[in-house]
């Protein structure tokens, strides 16, 4: 049975700029928002977009991530004609290779895609925070009879040099593309979300694979090649919240943004199906004690708060003891903050115990990762 579209999620990155958070964890497996892992966002997006076949390409610290993906049940991808598979680099007749580039990761899994035989392939990164219905992007892709559609976002001129920047014509067709330009010609940035016509993708990957000068990267090689060959490459304008959480600062910022998003139709969520799905721990609802005080914060179940928490994200199984003061911080699961400790502008890594009366980063604007 052929499918219209399957998703391939690139989740192999190490995320070196998250330091201790990714020492033993792939970046997409890092905790976010008090309850989720970063990869829950793209997995949920696929599920909510009715894309029920998802391949997750793993590489760095792949075992835990593969265990987390499991059979896809967390995101509802374990039904009939649905599947979620974690795919690590493997040994075949041809030998064995790590993924050397984003395009190479897909190239090495052509056999998997062939077996799915989809008309289109959606390629995503596993470490971005955003909510998106990919069907809207797919319908633009179909309408334009595109070989490739790239989802784009307007960024500021200052940020533009960090992205793949493109120029489009009146029909949204991409006429120019530059990867991380020193002098950006526009502010239209690639989000690293691609929908390819599978036949085209397959041909491009094959021809790129035999080019010894190629980095086997979508942004650096595949997309410029396709533009040079005058393939039909279009842009899909996304306008919504999107964040790459690759640094301690951006991870913290995204968590803080979640606190601010109080205007969303919160009570639609109980009736709507478009939630972010993840792992639900079997915890008691969180408890705020007689001296506890919580304001402007997000608190997950299983937490026990006996001190003061302001403008922070408190994950499950976190204990904040009496006389503590937590401000502007992200406290990851399993952390115990002992009596009288004070934390400001920090991310505390999972399962750490903060000693009594310890003070961390008070009065500083810079974000600090506390990992011991």
């Amino acid at each position: 049975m052929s499918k219209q579209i399957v998703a391939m999620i690139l989740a192999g990155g190490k995320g070196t700029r998250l330091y201790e958070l990714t020492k033993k964890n792939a970046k997409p497996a890092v905790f976010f928002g008090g309850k989720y892992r970063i990869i829950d966002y793209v997995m949920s997006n696929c599920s909510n977009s009715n894309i029920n076949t998802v391949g997750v390409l793993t590489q760095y610290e792949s075992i835990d991530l593969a265990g987390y993906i499991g059979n896809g049940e967390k995101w509802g991808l374990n039904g009939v004609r649905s599947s979620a598979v974690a795919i690590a680099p493997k040994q075949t007749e041809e030998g064995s290779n790590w993924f050397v580039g984003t395009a190479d990761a897909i190239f090495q899994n052509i056999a998997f895609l062939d077996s799915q035989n989809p008309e289109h392939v959606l390629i995503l990164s596993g470490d971005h925070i955003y909510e998106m219905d990919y069907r809207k992007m797919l319908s633009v892709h179909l309408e334009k009879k595109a070989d490739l559609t790239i989802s784009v976002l307007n960024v500021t001129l200052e940020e533009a040099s960090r992205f793949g920047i493109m120029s489009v014509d009146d029909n949204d067709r991409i006429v120019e593309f530059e990867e991380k330009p020193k002098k950006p010609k526009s502010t239209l940035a690639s989000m690293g979300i691609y929908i390819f016509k599978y036949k085209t993708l397959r041909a491009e990957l094959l021809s790129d694979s035999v080019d010894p000068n190629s980095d086997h990267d979508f942004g650096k090689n595949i997309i410029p090649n396709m533009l040079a060959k005058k393939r039909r490459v279009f842009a899909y304008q996304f306008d919504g919240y999107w964040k790459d959480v690759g640094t301690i600062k951006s991870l913290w910022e995204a968590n803080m943004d979640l606190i601010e998003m109080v205007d969303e139709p919160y009570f639609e969520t109980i009736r709507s199906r478009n939630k972010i799905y993840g792992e639900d721990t079997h915890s008691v609802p969180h408890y705020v004690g007689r001296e506890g005080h919580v304001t402007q914060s997000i608190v997950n179940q299983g937490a026990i708060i006996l001190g003061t928490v302001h403008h922070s994200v408190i994950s499950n199984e976190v204990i904040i003891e009496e006389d503590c003061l937590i401000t502007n911080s992200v406290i990851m699961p399993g952390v115990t903050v002992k009596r009288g400790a004070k934390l400001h502008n920090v991310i505390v890594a999972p399962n750490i115990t903060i000693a009594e009366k310890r003070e961390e980063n008070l009065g500083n604007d810079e974000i600090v990762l506390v990992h011991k």
Partner: protein
Amino acid sequence: MANILGILNLHHSPELGPLTKRRSIASTSFLGRYAFMDFMLSNFSNSGIDMVATLVKKHPRSILKHLGSRNIWNVNTKNGFEVIAYNEQGIKFGERYNTDIANILENKWILRQANPDYVVIAPTHFIAPIDFRPVIENHIRNNAEITMMYKEVDNAREHFIDASTFTINNDGLITNIGQNKGAFDRINVSMETLIINMDKFKELLEEAKNLSAFFSIYDVISYRLGLGERVHAYEYRGYLRSFDSLDHYFEYSFELLNYTMRKELFLEHWPIYTVTHDTPPAKYDESAYVRNSFVANGSKIAGTVTNSILSRYVHVLPGAKIDKCIILTDCEIGPNRELEYCVIDKAVKVTKIKGIKGTVDNIAYIKEGDIV
């Protein structure tokens, strides 16, 4: 390794006043997140009892909604099973015929499929973390055919009223089963929980026909006890409460706001599993003031909540004051509304009435779906 069948017997469930008008106590919300049946089902699961049948007497709608289509408690979903046993004897012939024995006989296939060596039968309204493994080991060591569990309590003048009481001889055998009418402080209260050999169980089911069509399992055992049947007693020590009235539901729920009590029910390595709904973490606004309360996920707090239990998706608007209340799922407490000593059922909107004040002896109740 013995085959053990667990039976959750709902045929003797008490009423919790208006809370159980439309639902069984088994599926009634507890502590903002659980259903009462979760506790015994988790006890079975954690004790390695993977074949479980729930005998439903009435209100199948609410039980089906909770147990639904997902298998939460089984360890192995092929070798274990979790089934609902229901019968229509009551509807066809009158409520007296709707006994637990009639239900089991109507659903004999469960006994055939499980083919157990031992059967563990337990109710849902005695909340306790019970590890059945030592109880079963003890049963086998004693060469017992029937073992019944009890706890020695010292508050029987006001608690456990109408519960069965055991008189136990020096050999650990039950010599008499009575009923607690509040005459004494100290009694051996029956937990209505028994271990029985399959052969003996079949014998009792067979004999019931010749005794009375209206006899329950406990009636037959009481009868047999009178004829000299050896029924062993097993003393349970640990947290035990019988949720047998709305007042006690209120009282025992609030007891658990105390950390020490909580630690007695929620043991370190004894998780209580429940149906999960991927509910996002709770959000606290700038004006939130919460003290000594449980708050479930999905809730949004902008007002004052003290000494209360909030279930999922409870929206407390600015200026609202909630004290000593239990609020079920998906309620909205409007701006400046004041609630005291209330039990608010699901999906209620408190928007027009200025305040609802019950008393400790006369708890105010608002029924499901009402706007007040």
